[in-house]
């Protein structure tokens, strides 16, 4: 957030068209890369509590840190707080207590008008895909580029690229409901990744898919992670987690009960 105000202060005394143009340019760049962790961690939770109403607790005092480029599994039973964790990251909701810092930015202090720019830097993948119905695969991905103000020529170049990356080159003109679940999830991943976000969050992306398809999705997310994108994936797919041997954060009733590197879904019984 300091960079933003610093840029404004610098440009403030300057007037005239040239100055305005350079200020606009700065702002554009600033918006494109709201997430700028520098050498610091990509995600920091400091004593985060999220309550729903009186009794229901989503998260109960979570403090942790995730470095840029990490691949993290978020595991736990339904209702353990995985989804709350995910939804705090793109400010779909705000914590009752504590701080959530993403890409060096304290989300609690972020102005509401900046939230769209935050989300452009975070790819989101959901269990129910959340594709726009009535729009072709191509347009669904194109929309994510349109919102960033990308020009049509660049969109025509990027969409086929990403479609071939997820292996759906020949399905561009299909509507979402004409595709299988696995294919829809690939579209959703393509949309999440087309802006090359620094962070990708996935809430049970394989929850509706059969094991073989799940592995394909998993490989896709892994490849995205290898390009340097931090990936947070909430799941309760035991086999997948055990195979991957990545960092595992286990939640139980809103508390972190385990945080291990190169771990399995559950602790191995001695």
């Amino acid at each position, binding site marked *: 957030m300091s960079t933003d105000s610093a840029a404004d202060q610098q440009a403030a005394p300057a007037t005239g068209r040239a100055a305005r143009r350079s200020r606009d340019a700065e702002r554009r760049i600033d918006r494109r890369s709201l997430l700028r962790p520098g050498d610091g961690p990509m995600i920091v939770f400091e004593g985060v509590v999220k309550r729903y109403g009186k009794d229901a607790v989503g998260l109960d005092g979570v403090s942790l840190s995730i470095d840029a480029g990490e691949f993290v599994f978020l595991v736990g039973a339904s209702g353990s707080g995985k989804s709350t964790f995910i939804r705090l990251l*793109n400010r*779909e*909701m705000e914590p009752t207590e504590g701080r959530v810092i993403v890409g060096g930015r304290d989300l609690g202090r972020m102005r509401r*008008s900046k939230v*769209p*720019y*935050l*989300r*452009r*830097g975070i790819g*989101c993948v959901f269990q129910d895909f*959340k*594709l*726009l*119905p*009535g*729009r072709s695969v191509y347009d669904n991905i194109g*929309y*994510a580029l*349109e*919102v*960033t*103000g990308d020009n049509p020529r660049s969109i025509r170049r990027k969409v086929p690229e990403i479609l071939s990356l997820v292996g759906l080159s020949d399905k561009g003109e299909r509507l979402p409901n004409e595709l299988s679940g696995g294919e829809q999830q690939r579209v959703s991943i393509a*949309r999440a990744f087309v802006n090359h976000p620094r962070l990708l969050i996935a809430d049970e992306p394989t929850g509706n898919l059969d094991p073989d398809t799940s592995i394909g999705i998993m490989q896709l997310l892994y490849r995205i992670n290898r390009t340097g994108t931090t990936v947070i994936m909430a799941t309760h797919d035991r086999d997948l987690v055990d195979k991957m041997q990545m960092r595992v954060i286990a939640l139980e009733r809103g508390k972190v009960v385990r945080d291990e590197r190169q771990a399995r879904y559950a602790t191995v019984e001695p």
Partner: protein
Amino acid sequence: MRPGFFLREAWRSIRANAAISVAATVTVMIAVFILGAVIPSFLYVQSTVDKQKDRLDISVYISDSATNAQVQGLSDRLEQMKGEGLVKSYSYVSKDDALKELKGRLNNPDIIELLPSNPLPASFKVLPTDPERNPDIAARLQDSPALDRTLENGISYAKETSDRLLKILKVIQIAGVVLIGVLLVASVLLIGNTIRLSIFARRREVEVMRLVGATNWFIRWPFVIEGIICGVIGAAAAILLIWGAKIAVVDDFVRSNTDGSLTRDEATTIGFVWLGLILIVAGGLVGALGSGITLRRFLKV
């Protein structure tokens, strides 16, 4: 920002939600039709009111024995009141003019020939700026020696008639304004409601747009454009209906009224082109506002 993209988006959603788009358009059409019928009627009444007010003039009768200087004195006072804005205009009606006018009004003009001499006095016809101030004008002329005291003490204006008429006219005016206001509010609410339905049907879509980082205005523009399109089309349809009604009913009625008793006042109403323009703009505005405001609820968080 990107008019082409927003237009395409708006058109896409109109086609994808055809039923609701038609419902919104028809709602606008009905509202605008009513408005389009009420506005000219109201203006007609208003114009009739003004014409009636013009009839609330004052007659100042001049004695046959008045000298030229006395008449001139009366005329000077009227001129002064005109300068003060109390009197809109005044004119001198000579004895001959008065007789001629009377002749014109009689069914059997020849009866005038039977009169030994002209019994009618000369007079000033005074048209007040505001008929409610007629008593003031009368008071300032009252002491002129030129007045013909034998006739209503020299000055006549319809005291009771004018009071009552003015009251009725005021009520008609207020009622008209209230009616138009109520209609406007009702149509905005109705249209807003219809558009709310359309947006509610697509709230999931709006949610997804927000998740991929669309700014509020980026989401809003297509909806606003869609509202404008439905509003303008609805208004255009209503104008066609009004035009049909005008040709079939009003024009016909006016034509068949050959004695001109209805149109004699030359009461005027709004031109059709202007009415159409106003209604189209109103339709578009209502559509845009309806969708823009309704969407706000879904753009929070």
